[in-house]
């Protein structure tokens, strides 16, 4: 009996390698398109950036090995520190406000009422606008002579503020426009999360007779936590990478008050022609975002209830 089994297993083993080698190649073939795309557009630029950060380099290429000098230089520069400060402030201004506003709007419109589709379309519509187009709209609104803010301030008898030219207000102004731009996406995601909650959970709460805020705290927010976790992570990453609205509205000014890190990278690389320093900043940004995301996962997963 044993012998028979051994005899049978021999040809099977002989066939296996060629079969599995084919399956192996076939697997790689399926992966090839994404490997090529990621390789060309993500991995190569990433490793190239890390490589360049150890060199003195201009837009043509590296010309002298510099070791950690680029890092040493930027970490001790005031400009980079103010850039870090602007970025952190910008993130703190935009992310919580965006998510709270989006959550509020989503809670308002999660009911099934006639005509609710119109409001849902309104609230999510900023998602469909390009950063450039919305920045231009906001630029006009902030304009001290023709903008709506000055007109309203004038009408109310308040002093007219130079929103984008005043270093005290510029970052706030850019943040405000960013909140407006990113609310649409966050709203849509949160609304989707709300719609996914089993309505029976609310019906049971109605039979039990708990208050709206108890329901919000004990049912809605815990059930929404995976969605909120997702949107918080994505919003953080997006806020750290903000570029378009800064470029159009303030160009990092006035007095570097809106010179967030990605804009600073852009300026160093393409205006100051110091690709080495720009690469080092990019690497630092990458590790900051990575660390923050890992931290979020570590802290967040404990509070998130997946079904």
């Amino acid at each position, binding site marked *: 009996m044993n012998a028979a089994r051994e005899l049978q297993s021999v040809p099977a083993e002989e066939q296996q390698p060629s079969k599995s080698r084919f399956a192996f190649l076939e697997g790689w073939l399926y992966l090839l398109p994404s490997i090529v795309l990621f390789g060309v557009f993500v991995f190569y630029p990433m490793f190239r950036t890390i490589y360049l950060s150890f060199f003195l380099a201009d837009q043509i290429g590296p010309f002298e090995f510099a070791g950690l000098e680029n890092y040493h230089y930027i970490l001790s520069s005031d400009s980079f520190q103010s850039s870090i400060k602007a970025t952190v402030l910008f993130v703190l201004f935009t992310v919580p406000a965006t998510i709270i506003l989006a959550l509020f709007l989503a809670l308002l419109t999660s009911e099934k009422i006639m005509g609710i589709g119109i409001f849902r379309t309104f609230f999510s519509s900023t998602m469909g606008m390009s950063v450039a187009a919305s920045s231009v709209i906001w630029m006009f609104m902030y304009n001290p002579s023709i903008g709506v803010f000055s007109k309203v301030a004038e009408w109310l008898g308040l002093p007219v503020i130079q929103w984008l030219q005043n270093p005290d207000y510029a970052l706030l102004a850019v943040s405000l426009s960013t909140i407006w731009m990113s609310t649409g996406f966050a709203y849509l995601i949160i609304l989707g999360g709300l719609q996914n909650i*089993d309505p*029976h*959970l609310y*019906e*049971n*709460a*109605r*039979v*039990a*007779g*708990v*208050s709206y805020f108890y329901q919000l705290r*004990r*049912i809605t927010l*815990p*059930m929404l*936590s995976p969605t909120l976790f997702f949107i918080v992570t994505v919003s953080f990453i997006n806020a750290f990478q903000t570029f378009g609205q800064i470029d159009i509205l303030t160009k990092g000014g006035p007095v570097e008050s809106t010179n967030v890190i990605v804009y600073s990278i852009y300026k160093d690389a393409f205006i100051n022609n110091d690709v080495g320093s720009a690469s080092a900043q990019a690497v630092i940004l990458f590790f900051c975002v990575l660390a923050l995301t890992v931290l979020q996962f570590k802290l967040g997963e404990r509070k998130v*209830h997946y*079904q």
Partner: protein
Amino acid sequence: MTHVELAGLKKSYDGKKNVIEQVDLKLEQGEFFVLVGPSGCGKSTILRMIAGLEPITDGSLFVNGTRMNHAPPNKRNLSMVFQNYALYPHLNVEQNIMFGLHTKKISREEQQHRCAEAAEMLGLADYLKRKPRELSGGQRQRVALARAIVTQSPLCLMDEPLSNLDAKLRARMRSEIRQIQRKLGITMIYVTHDQTEAMTMADRMMILHEGQAMQIGKPLEIYNHPANAFTATFIGSPAMNVMDAKINPAGIHLSPQCTLPNPMKSSNKEASKQILFGIRPEHILFSAPEQADAVVEVVNTEILGTETLITFIMDDPKKQWIARWNGQWQFSVGDQIPIRFDMDSIHLFSKDKGRLLWTSNEDEPNQTAREVLR
């Protein structure tokens, strides 16, 4: 004492077509009442209207004599068990059971006490710290039950609570729910599509079809005296045989070969009309050839151990009849067997509306006596 009363209850979603037509019903204190019907018949809608989760279009709902049409669900003093249990996945069993108890102004100790008591009753004491996803279907079901029990509401509504369980567990939970209901003396309104659940659990039941109450009564009453062809076929498993037949003063013609005597003695003198002939499988009997009403062809037999279901045809192969006989009968497909109809147990329904035209007007004791003799 009347606990819950529905008077002319109606429901319409579009303002034109009523999905619930005029339901009138009085429930006694401590009664186990079952709403049963095929899916989409409106039974859950009625339950949700009683709970206050769905507005009442027309008619009145009285609880203990007070009109409650517009009271919010929590003011109606009831508990509810949902089909999918509606447990909170992020709360553990204990928190789930005690959810919302604080609104009833109950002290923390009393809440704990009630929770422990309910958990004990349902065998959940060891699972209080677990999350719902760590429980089996039956345990989740019990948590939902416990949540209804701890409120100590005098009225409990259940919306198909057993439909997500396997057959064995369902049978056990049926009897468990019934025992708890008796013990606590609560009034229960129980929705199901399963006629077995209705038959085995109900004190009384209502059969619904397309939003209309077809019949209200005790399970055996409905089984023995269905008011129409729908009830006759819906209650009972296997269902009552209901077949087209032609009736005239000479007799009931089931097939060219099979004519039964016409029991409607004083029936109108119309030459001949189409009716529905109904008879339960257990009332079709094996007969000696000389007494047979018909000789039929067997198309299938299902031997269940204590009884045998025989599917047969007369002349039309599309009309399959089922007979149920005690014992183990081994027929082959194609066998010709003589059968006899128990004429005291036939039902005649009108062809158009399925209304009951005639049934032997026996009273209960006779019926039982006959069952024993047979």
